[in-house]
């Protein structure tokens, strides 16, 4: 992966985002926020995919992050955005450390299916829980950031800005990680695990670590989503269809660049909104056709459009 001053580009992008966020209409702010928090989740998926594993249950951590954030406000009246994100990351991380012991033993379709099973178990638990609103979920609102009160009209921008900052930080972090020793091991594991073992590195440890990192990212994404949307429910977080969407965006984006997940998320969200609005009776078909076209003509993911030849997924 070429270095090419990527961190600098990302910081420039951040500054641009923060600036135009001040003049964008509400719906555009919301739209970019969606691309940002979905992109963070997909960034984690990209890490796993570089390690050769595709999770069909990332919704588990996305859901945990969202519910952690929601619980803070709904049950403990702590409506601080920073706290929510930290809580989301922590809860997701802890669960991932535990489940990672088990899941790091699986590969390919079995990894995918087992991760799906766990996310559906969480889904079942949430549906059963009437205190958490069952399938209706519950609402939350963001009132402060790191203790500082935010005025009602500035909440959208605050969430947007924080999402942008976090996205940039994580993207730069991932970029450094991919170029580090541990990061390069991921690609090696994907190519041939046995050789990595012979080299003396512990495949399971690396997979476990990457799994936890991707889970934390998903948890942060979920918490940000909870803040942005103001509502959490099991259907749009833990259900397998949500995880499937993450996988799609990940494939759409490709693993070539740390900025690709955000672009991919933006495009996906745009297509979905476009389809719902203009084809209210056939939006699923529109989405499916778009997915097929992308898979067929952009095998390397989005980044191949820019002429940078990346390994196809």
């Amino acid at each position, binding site marked *: 992966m070429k270095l090419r001053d990527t961190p600098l580009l990302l910081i420039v992008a951040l500054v641009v985002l923060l600036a135009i966020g001040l003049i964008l209409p*509400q719906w555009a702010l919301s739209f970019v926020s969606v691309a940002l928090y979905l992109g963070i989740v997909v960034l984690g998926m990209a890490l796993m995919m570089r390690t050769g594993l595709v999770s069909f249950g990332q919704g588990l951590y996305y859901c945990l992050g969202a519910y952690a954030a929601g619980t803070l406000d709904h049950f403990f009246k702590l409506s601080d955005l920073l706290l929510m994100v930290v809580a989301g990351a922590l809860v997701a991380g802890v669960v991932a450390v535990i489940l990672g012991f088990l899941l790091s033993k699986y590969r390919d379709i079995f990894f995918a299916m087992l991760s799906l099973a766990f996310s559906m178990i969480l889904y079942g638990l949430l549906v059963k829980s009437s205190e958490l609103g069952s399938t209706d979920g519950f*609402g939350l609102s963001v009132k402060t950031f790191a203790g500082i009160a935010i005025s009602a009209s500035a909440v959208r921008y605050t969430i947007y800005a924080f999402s942008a900052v976090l996205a940039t930080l994580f993207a730069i972090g991932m970029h450094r990680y991919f170029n580090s020793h541990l990061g390069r091991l991921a690609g090696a594991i994907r190519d041939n695990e046995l050789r990595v073992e012979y080299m003396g590195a512990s495949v399971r440890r690396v997979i476990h670590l990457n799994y936890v990192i991707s889970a934390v990212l998903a948890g942060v994404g979920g918490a940000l989503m909870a803040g942005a*949307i103001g*509502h959490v*429910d099991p259907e*749009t977080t833990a259900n397998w269809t949500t995880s499937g969407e993450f996988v799609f965006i990940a494939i759409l984006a490709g693993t070539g660049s740390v900025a690709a997940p955000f672009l991919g998320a933006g495009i996906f969200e745009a297509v979905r909104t476009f389809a*719902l*609005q203009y084809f*209210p009776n056939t*939006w699923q078909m529109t989405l499916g056709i778009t997915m097929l076209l992308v898979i067929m003509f952009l095998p390397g993911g989005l980044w191949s459009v820019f002429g940078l030849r990346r390994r196809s997924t």
Partner: protein
Amino acid sequence: MKHRLLRLARAAALIALCASTTSIMAEEAKPIRIGFVTFLSGPAAGPFGVPAKLAAEAIVASINAGKAPAPHNTKGFGGAPVELVVIDEAGGATKQVSEYRNLVERSDVDFVIGYISSGDCLAVAPVAEEMKKLTVLFDCGTPRIFEEASYKYVFRTRPHATMDAVGAALYLTEQQKNIKTFAGINQNYAWGQDSWNDFTAAMSVLKPEAKITTSQMPKFGAGQYGAEISALIDSQSDVIHSSLWGGDLEAFMLQAVPRELFKSSRLVLVAGEPYLVRLGTSIPDGTIVGARGTHGVFAPASPLNNWLTEIYKAKAEGVIPTYPAYSAASAILGLKAAYEKAKITKLSASIPMGANKGVKEEMEKAYQVGPSQEEIIAAFEKLTFDSPSGKVRMTLGKGHQAVAGTAYGTTKLVNGAVTVVNIKEYPAERVQPPDGVASPDWIKGGMKPAK
């Protein structure tokens, strides 16, 4: 004397202007855009989403032509034609929040009417409040909306689901004195869970000696109920409560009737009314059926009811309207009533006292602009209006949540056709908590009628 003449002149001018609505407004009225959100795909589309959409479209076409019966006979909303912008409620609560923002900001709608799913209602309400856009929730059932928060911009023109469960328990215990055991089969999601919980709570007050044998909670959309039916037959319960709807209800009935589940158990279908037509003769005699309100077969005979039936049948190729159509009617007519009340209030306030010049211009100006959101809200709160389901009173939730009575009946096969007999109505106070009291607490406290 001069004072009184002025007042008379003012009143006369007002009447004259109201009477000449069409001539002034026909060319200059800006259409009122209403976003209408309902299920166009997925399992809720067939039984609820599409009937609601058809009803909305038929109603809007009819009121734009001024053909609705009094008191809704003005054209459009106070003379301005109404346009519907219909979008699909599918995609989940998160998606619907984004779509709501798009509706308001990009499609530039004046009002939003919609939402069948309780999850969507709960998610969208705070957004409506944030964006200060008058939103009428027309069909969702959860009591949580106005029991957990108060809203200025959000209204719901139908009573919430507590009414269905309490009404069912009241009717059942009145019809059947000897109930030793009862069971339930409900879909395992918020609506099914809440229905069952409210029903069992009401039963524990009305008939504490009745025991619950089994509560089956199949997955939403399961479609195959073989094991559940066996368990229900085995339980030999006197009564089976069910809030199943849609294809799930049809599948359940299809599988349960031949297995003679209802030979020994009496079925209570809380949301059964739409299926009287579809399931027809396969509904066992003696089934207790509700329509989530005084809709459809329970609707009072009235010109409004006849009108809705006629225009809906014309739109839906001869099918008669079921309760989603009635919910849509209440929402649109309620909003219309509030709009027109606000407009008249605004008009009468716009006529300056003591001026006899410029009155017509002032009024025309007030007329064209139309009432603001705040003015309509003020008119909507605590409003009482007429709908094809009867009178709707916006009295709960600080004037934002409708109350109405409900009715239940028993099915009976008469000359090979399924009819509903023994219809009993329950007024709002007996089936809904008073303002400020949460539904679960009210039921546990003995369901004392609100004053």
